[in-house]
């Protein structure tokens, strides 16, 4: 097994100074949402970390997650991380194809058995294996085979994490999430449609630097990024508290940047880092663009009623059933009154 270089060595080879490294560590801490006081520990960890092998599997997906990631693949700090990992299989990005590509996957699996990372985007169809295959291998088989020797699995995007759009009602392919199939390995969910690129790299960075899995929430998401709601970190939150709401997409409130709660914003129940990490190299995030949060990083976000229905609306059936309840009430009332009268008669006869 050939020894992989440490990240420190990679950076040194690129002529990065200690100051530059410190700056890198500071931004890493920032990405990991760790307090600046952690920077020295990060520096020490990163210096000695070794390049892990990464196998990326794409199943029922739209390649949006890869797109999102490659948006940040220019030589940025996140890009450096990718320099530090060895992406041994990714059928969209790699040059090889067909048997060659599969051979590369097998080689990486053998060489790094027990220590490589498997990244999955897309859900796995259980309905019929033919719904989605790669090189003639069904998604389920490929996942099982690849995961067998992995250290951990990262489910990238809401499809891999929760079933996503393929899994939405009525779920024609019988799509399931990765963690429903992989139960004997740690699975980290990085949901989002797509996930924030920085969050994807940060999860890898954390694995890389500390060699351990991050702390996860009840949906298997790293708490560092999915610990707070969009609503909690939203710059429009003060308007929510003041009761200033945009009523339509083109009213004065919308123009003044008021809270989008009434337009169906799912920010209060959506855990993600959009409000602070932002998108497009920190430019903005959907709410800043004037659109309510859709809640894409939450399970079954596609099936939670209309995107534009306010959160606090109940889900009621039509009024017919309520009218039925009212009719039942009348019936019970009549029965109760009749029973009461009979009871009166009974006592007045006896008494």
């Amino acid at each position, binding site marked *: 097994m050939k020894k992989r270089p440490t990240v420190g060595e990679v950076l040194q080879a690129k002529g*990065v*100074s200690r100051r530059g490294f*410190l*700056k890198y560590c500071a931004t890493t801490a920032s990405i990991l949402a760790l307090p600046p006081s952690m920077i020295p520990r990060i520096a020490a960890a990163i210096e000695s970390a070794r390049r892990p092998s990464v196998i990326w599997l794409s199943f029922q997906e739209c390649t949006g997650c890869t797109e999102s990631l490659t948006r940040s693949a220019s030589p940025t700090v996140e890009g450096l991380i990718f320099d530090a990992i060895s992406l041994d299989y990714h059928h969209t990005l790699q040059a090889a194809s067909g048997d060659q590509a599969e051979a590369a996957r097998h080689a990486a699996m053998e060489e790094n058995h027990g220590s490589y990372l498997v990244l999955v985007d897309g859900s796995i169809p259980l309905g019929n294996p033919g719904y989605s295959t790669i090189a003639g291998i069904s998604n389920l088989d490929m996942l099982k085979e690849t995961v067998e020797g992995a250290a951990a699995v990262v489910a990238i995007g809401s499809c891999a994490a929760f079933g996503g759009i393929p899994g939405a009602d009525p779920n024609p392919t019988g799509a399931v999430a990765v963690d429903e199939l992989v139960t004997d390995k740690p699975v980290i969910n990085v949901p989002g449609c797509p996930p924030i690129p920085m969050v994807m790299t940060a999860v890898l960075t954390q694995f890389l630097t500390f060699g351990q899995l991050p702390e996860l929430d009840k949906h298997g998401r790293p708490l560092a990024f999915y610990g707070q709601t969009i609503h909690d970190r939203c710059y429009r939150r003060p308007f929510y508290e003041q009761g200033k709401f945009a009523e339509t997409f083109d009213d004065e409130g919308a123009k003044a940047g008021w809270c989008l709660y009434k337009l169906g914003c799912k920010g209060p129940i959506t855990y993600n880092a959009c409000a602070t990490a932002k998108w497009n190299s920190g430019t903005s995030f959907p709410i800043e663009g004037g659109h309510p949060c859709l809640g894409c990083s939450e399970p079954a976000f596609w099936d939670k009623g209309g995107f534009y229905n306010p959160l606090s609306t109940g889900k009621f059936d039509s009024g017919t059933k309520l009218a039925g309840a009212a009719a039942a009430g009348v019936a019970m009332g009549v029965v109760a009154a009749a029973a009461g009268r009979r009871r009166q008669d009974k006592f007045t006869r006896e008494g």
Partner: protein
Amino acid sequence: MTGPEEVRNTPFYGNVGPLLNEVLHAVDRLLETDEPTTIDLAGLPFGPGELEHLEATLGTGELSCKLDALGTSRIRETAYPGVWWLEHRNPHDEVVGRYIEITRTPEILSSQEADITAGRARLEDQLTT
């Protein structure tokens, strides 16, 4: 980029005030116990124009440095001594991190042990050749 006109017209989201208050407390801590504080602005919510508003409020002080390592970084003391504004950029000149440091000198300004050692080696090489 957001111009000064827009800064003045920034709608009030109310995120700047509490932060400035935190800076004030950090300055107190620095004076009383010499404990420095770093505030990572990436983790805080800002509305459009608010960051610029914050930067303009803190203003510019006596010292301003430019660091060239993995892209440029600008480090300057604000109008309030002991309160530093740090902005890191990547080689693509995109901002990758913004911090307010409340300290006597930001750590990154000091020459680093490893760099000094490496520099000394280079200097020695130069002398021997």
